[in-house]
């Protein structure tokens, strides 16, 4: 038996930040529904980057 997790890709937005993120990042975020016309998808609103190692 083998364990396998289905890992989805998600969209994220960080308002008023232009600085690039590292390729792996620990983030604090809010989970919101983004509705455009009839379509709804989940979106991460990023609030902070934990850059301490």
């Amino acid at each position, binding site marked *: 038996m083998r364990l396998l997790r289905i*890992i989805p890709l*998600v969209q994220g937005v960080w308002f008023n930040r232009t600085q690039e993120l590292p390729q*792996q990042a620990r983030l604090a975020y809010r*989970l919101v529904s983004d509705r455009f016309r009839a379509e709804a998808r989940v979106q991460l609103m990023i609030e902070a980057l934990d850059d301490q190692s």
Partner: protein
Amino acid sequence: MSIFSQRPYSSEIAKILESGELHPLLARLYAARGVNSVDELQLDFNHLLPPNTLLHCENAAKILADAIRDQRQLLIVADYDCDATACAVGIRGLKMLGASSKQIDFLVPNRFTMGYGLTPEVIDLAKVLSPKPSLLITVDNGIASHVGINYAKEHGMDVLVTDHHLPTEQLPNALAIVNPNQAQCRFQSKALAGVGVMFYVLIALRAELRQRGIFTSETQPKLEQLLGLVALGTVADVAQLDRNNRILVSQGLKRIRQGIAPPGLLALFEVAGRNPEIANPFDLGFAIGPRLNAAGRLADMSLGIKLLLCDDSKSALEISQELDRINRERRVIESGMQESALAHLTDRDPDDRPALCLWNANWHQGVVGIVASRLKERFNRPAIIFAPAEGSNGEALLRGSGRSIAGFHLRDALDLVSKRKPSLIQKFGGHAMAAGLTIRQVDFEDFEESFFQVTSELLTEDLLKRRCIHDGELRPEDFNVKTSDILMNEIWGHGFPEPLFYGEFDVLQQSLMKDKHLRLQLKPRVSDETASHHPFSARRLV
């Protein structure tokens, strides 16, 4: 640089909540916010704290019932920084309960010339109105207006105070004072906003009128239609969302979603591009509130009140568009002020000083609070921003607004400054996180020095550390609209923080949006711990 930590919660309580049929994620979030039982999550109207526990609320109701019966002329006096909702709820509610249109009016003192609260200047304005008011009703102010209230009496006008601000030791000499924060009041929700206090007075008045046989439970006016305004005022005034306030907000949102709200409120949703059918607290706080209050910041609040009193959709839309325009103007002024404030700071490192204290001859009084708030956020230390003002004798003054960080009581700090140098601050007021004050322009440097002195004595290194308190990780299967819809359907806000999660991601793509924002494509990394030990993790067996 922030310190990240998870908001603690008892897994035992989370289990109890979960066994009450609550979604496991919500159970964990509520447990971390001090909810102990599923019952506390019932937010129906009948769970509101009863009005008879709010001191003098029933007395105020009797006074109003008599005044309506005796055709006394009523005048609601709003404060410049009260959001328009408290005044609008008062006018609409009293009319629903029998006051005639001619019998009731409102007055909003000019914030730039008449000072705080019910001042003698305001009374001078009220006493020459025609017809002359005989009963003044304050909303969201009045508790500190001792002089003005006595002055009103001398001119033949009674005053009924409804307020929620902290009283001084000696209460003013009003006919009745309804304020959950007065010493003998045992009302359990001290966080009730000004609009909430007014709503409670109306509920009590309706009960009084029922008792007098004017209505029955079947025929009584539906004050519940005002709950949308109460919700807006509660959120926009950043009242702490204890259970009673969550009930008011939840019940208000429910009615807004059904379209049961004054046309002006629905029109604000329209100009903000928000859909009232899925209204949430975030809309009220960040889209609707700022537009409604925009006129009050730059000129006076009357336009906002006029909008909320308007009963015709077409005029409501026109006023909303005007408010939307003023709000854009407010944003331009605000960002200009913020830029010049930041430019001011470049020559000295803000990290080297305990607080920020700035003024500029071009800054606007109506926006100092918002700018102070942004700078506080950015530098994580107390900030006071001043704009020029003129005293009654033509003296050059500075009127300032300050915002503080958790653990530093701003009003107490100003109190200490004023005790050490009694002539330095002309007047001040406020609470732990926000305060307002007036000083002479020539005293600015003196004030700055004294305030920095007090701040460096009271602030600790620990308080200056930026903290990010989050709610832990999500399971990969929670990254979907079903979960985000569940979260967005709950009532979060001040004192009952919106969930903030934490996790590690592979950043697959990143690009700039409008040159201002980062747009990201992310893949959650699943830590071993989340996969195997995390109480809320699930595995998919293949």
